[in-house]
């Protein structure tokens, strides 16, 4: 009973504590703007016009799952245009809940176009977390702040807490599952320094997968030459991934692991040439209410000093 009571308290504290409206509104802004950024950087409708040979190996049930009917690039272009509009509305906070819902629905359909001809799982192309978060935000009062033509309510509420915590969890799960998938697919042997060395070398050897610049293609091979660094990278990578699930629930974890995640992505970019498209979404862990309050205080203090001098 004691354990159940403690779990109940933890659950209520995690999901139903008073939370400022501003933090949830920033979550809406971050995920809608991120989805818009990725959508405007791809040409998803064009894939609908691929020749029939590309669709031969696609499972029919996957086409139904995403309501994809090949050969309708014009329709897909219209849907993409609608998605751009709904994402803009969500970003601005205009009819935000409806806009978030429609955006998520349209992205659920559009995103798989990028990969459907060889895999129905378009993860790590930029939209996966956005779709989850936009659906969740559409169920919340996500436009009580940061919206056109309105002012934020002053009272924090549990209504702003559970959706924010859930979208933070959608992102934190990415790190957790990235860690567990290594252990599930390769076992503890994934941590073998020889395996890490091979990963660094194989990325450095592929001239077709390379970013040009003085910072790239040197860090990975350098780490690969040091057994202890490979072991450290393996342990650090998996441990940091697994621990990240604590971030939505712990201020200490947020302060340590969010900057650490940013550092991790920079290292991955430099050593493996992999750009983590979700990196800007880490901003959802910032306490914007506190940050904006501090900035206002500092500005007010600066104004006061100017007035005194005058």
């Amino acid at each position, binding site marked *: 009973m004691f354990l159940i009571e403690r779990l109940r308290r933890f659950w209520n504290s995690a999901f139903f504590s008073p939370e400022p409206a501003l933090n949830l509104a920033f979550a809406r802004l971050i995920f809608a703007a991120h989805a818009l950024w990725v959508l405007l950087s791809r040409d998803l409708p*064009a894939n609908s016009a691929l020749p029939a040979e590309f669709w*031969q190996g696609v499972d029919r*049930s996957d*086409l139904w799952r995403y309501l994809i009917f090949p050969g309708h690039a014009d329709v897909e272009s219209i849907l993409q245009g609608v998605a751009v509009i709904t994402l803009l509305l969500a970003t601005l906070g205009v009819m935000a809940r409806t806009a978030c819902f429609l955006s998520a629905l349209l992205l659920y359909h559009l995103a798989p176009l990028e990969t459907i001809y060889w895999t129905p799982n378009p993860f790590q192309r930029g939209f996966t977390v956005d779709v989850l978060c936009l659906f969740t935000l559409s169920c919340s009062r996500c436009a009580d702040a940061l919206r056109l033509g309105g002012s934020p309510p002053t009272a924090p509420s549990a209504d702003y807490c559970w959706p924010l915590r859930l979208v933070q969890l959608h992102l934190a*799960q990415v790190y957790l599952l990235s860690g*567990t998938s290594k252990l*599930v697919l390769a076992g503890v042997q994934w941590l073998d320094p020889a395996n890490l060395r091979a990963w660094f*070398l*194989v990325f450095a050897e592929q001239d077709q997968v390379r970013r040009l610049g003085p910072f790239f293609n040197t860090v990975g091979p350098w780490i690969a030459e040091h057994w202890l660094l490979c072991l450290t990278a393996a342990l650090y990578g998996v441990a940091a991934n697994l621990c990240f699930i604590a971030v939505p629930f712990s201020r200490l974890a947020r302060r340590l692991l969010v900057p650490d995640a940013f550092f991790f992505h920079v290292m991955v970019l430099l050593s493996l040439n992999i750009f983590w498209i979700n990196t800007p979404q880490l901003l959802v862990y910032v306490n914007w209410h506190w940050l904006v309050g501090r900035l206002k205080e500092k500005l007010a203090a600066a104004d006061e000093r100017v007035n005194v001098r005058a």
Partner: protein
Amino acid sequence: MGVVKAVLVLGFVGLGLIATHLPRTEGSRRRLINLYIGYTLALGLGAGLPVFEVWPFSTWPLVAGRVAQTVTQPRVVAVGADGQEYPIDYRAWEPFVFEELIAWYDKHFARLDRAAQDQVGAFLLGVIEHNRQQWAVGKPVIHFERYLGPLSTPLFLGHPQHWTQGAGVPSRPFRGLRFYSESWNVEERWRDPSKVSRKLTYEYREP
């Protein structure tokens, strides 16, 4: 299976809508929100932990396997009228993302009959040659940078920009494509970059 996955995602969407729109009392609302959160967490972990995707509840197997001793990768080159081979700038494949195309080639191309393979070859050559012509006259159309220019989202993996660096855009038309399968031992190639074996797996020549 795809339909089952769609139903599971529909459950996530539907429960969220029900939890926030239907309840008339605070108590029933809280219970439904708890159910929604529980369902979402269970689906996320249920899909992720056994590595069984129900996109957008994904499994995120990033750099997750063990590297085989011998690595195999495809390489595609363009062929001129004189038979000379040219590297292809990754942006010339757009609207394909290069690694998606390569993944499709690896998984499905060999299962097509020769006529279908040639249809694909002709289509891909058309994409590449059309882009080459635009680049050659100084009017490149980079699909992915149409709206945001250099501020566009970078691709997951980086690729060399063959047509804006080094020899630049080939001036003569492409007449064919060659698909190679390249294999190498990771340690051997690291010591000697020339230790790569290459096998022609498919060639398309314009009729």
